[in-house]
């Protein structure tokens, strides 16, 4: 499902990897109580719009689906810290799985604008569930690896083989991933192999999205210290930080 929001301020200022909080309850309604964090799939600064893709999973997205064109939807954003692309990066590898790809697509959009190259991997259960293939192509991705469970191409061994074969010669300088623990581990392998830093966008249940409710942290990092807030310190993290946290 897709929502195109007329949101000029968001479209103008959103950085790749940031998100918005969408309130699925209409004015006057009190349920669903919590707004839903949603990545920006694409933005059109000229038109002042941003596009959100979502899969219908539970009460929140079920409700989102009921919104009609022209209706107002309570939206706060852009929020969070997005991906950081150092000035000297020329090629970025994007590795997304399922709906997680939505956090990566605006990186390709920005790459195109800034003359950087994109290598994209989009993975899904089957070809019908693949997200972003056309979008990546349209936004100038040098290579798009569309892999699925159905044809076996998404299996880590197969995928790593084809990625190393194609890109070992001229590897990317940055790896960004979202949507799958298995792919995160695969990216870690590639990150070590290519000595390319890696960033991961992670999900968490959120209430405020702004950093005051402390609902999105995963607990303690070290004695008495709270782990990072996914909404405000992330959702994009350098892999190193994550690894420390995962204790």
């Amino acid at each position, binding site marked *: 499902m897709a929502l195109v929001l007329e949101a000029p301020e968001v479209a103008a*200022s959103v950085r790749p990897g940031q998100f918005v909080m969408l309130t699925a309850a209409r*004015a006057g309604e009190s349920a669903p*109580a919590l*707004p839903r964090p949603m990545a920006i799939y694409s933005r059109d600064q000229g038109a002042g719009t941003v596009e959100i893709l979502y899969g219908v999973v539970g009460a929140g997205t079920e409700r989102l689906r009921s919104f009609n064109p022209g209706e107002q939807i309570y939206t706060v*954003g*852009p929020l969070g810290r997005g991906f950081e692309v150092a000035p000297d990066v020329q090629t970025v590898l994007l590795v997304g799985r399922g709906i997680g790809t939505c956090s990566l697509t605006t990186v390709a959009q920005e790459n195109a604008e800034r003359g950087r190259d994109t290598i994209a991997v989009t993975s899904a259960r089957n070809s019908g569930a693949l997200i972003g293939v056309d979008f990546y192509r349209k936004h100038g991705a040098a290579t798009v690896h569309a892999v699925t469970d159905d044809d076996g191409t998404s299996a880590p061994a197969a995928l790593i083989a084809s990625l190393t074969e194609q890109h070992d010669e001229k590897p990317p300088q940055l790896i960004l991933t979202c949507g799958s623990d298995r792919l995160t581990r695969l990216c870690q392998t590639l990150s070590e192999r290519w000595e390319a830093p890696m960033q991961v966008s992670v999900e968490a249940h959120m209430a405020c999205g702004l*950093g005051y409710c*402390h609902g*999105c942290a995963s607990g*303690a990092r070290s004695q008495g210290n709270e782990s990072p807030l996914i909404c405000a310190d992330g959702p994009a993290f350098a892999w190193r930080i994550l690894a420390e946290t995962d204790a």
Partner: protein
Amino acid sequence: MHSAVIDSRAHDRDNGTQSRPDLSVTVGDLVLGNPVMPASGCFGPELAPLIPFERLGAVVTKTVFARRRAGNPAHRLAETSHGMLNSVGIPSPGSDGFRSGLLRRYQAGGTHVIVSIGGLVASEYYEVAEDLADEDIAAFEINVSCPNLEQGGLAIGTSAERVAEVVSGIKELVAVPLFVKLTPTVSSISEIARAAQDAGAAALVVANSFSGLSINLRNRSSTLGTGAGGYTGPGIKPLALKLVHDAAAAVTIPVIGCGGISTAADVAEFMIAGATAVQIGTATFTRPTTMIEVIDDLGPLCEALNVRNISELIGTMDNRVTTGLSL
């Protein structure tokens, strides 16, 4: 951070009427511009781009502990069909970290600052109160619902004696007015309310979140990392309203209502039941501008209810049995 609220409701209200109803209320020595303030833990300076803080009756901080705390493991939040559950576990920067950081940002907001304080043992309450006593603070809100290590994890708020002990203990140490935020899961809120008043509370907050649970059928585990959590939001409104009514009937100090409030009509219900002011928690998550919308709606509601001063509503619940001619 840039924030865009794509919803006209918060902005295009009519604010240009002639003699508007007076929304101010008095809580102890404190005069509030209107009765609406946030509930502890459901608000932060991070909301400044979305909410003009000076329009709030007061702001209330997340509960501060004397020492730094990390909080609970994930998931800390779960939605239910009529509200939410949380087991955030009150992470805290400790009183030192709070004083040098968050407190300053709350104080910049231009309204009264109420600081919620907590502790795992009675002495921690004393410690944090003393640490912050010299700050420019309108009141301490004593959160007696923290699990108490001296009582096997049961909250202080479940015992009238322990509440009295902690409140009078703090009272001896600091001059800041003390609000006491009561625990809802007790057999008689009146008893605890009276104990808090007698120990020197300037006001009561009624109540905190209710103990609740929800289960994920797929893995047969709690939807929260820690098992049970605090149930909040619209589903608890009838429960909180009853507690406010009972507590207000039991004491002479002001009661601040809290639990499931999301509209101006809810505010009026709580005030009629006996509340002098209210706190809004979960509804701020649903729509961050809820408090401002509620405040905007209070004037017209007062007119509809025929009161010039909103304080005329306080404690006016009529308990007469209404029987018409047709039975």
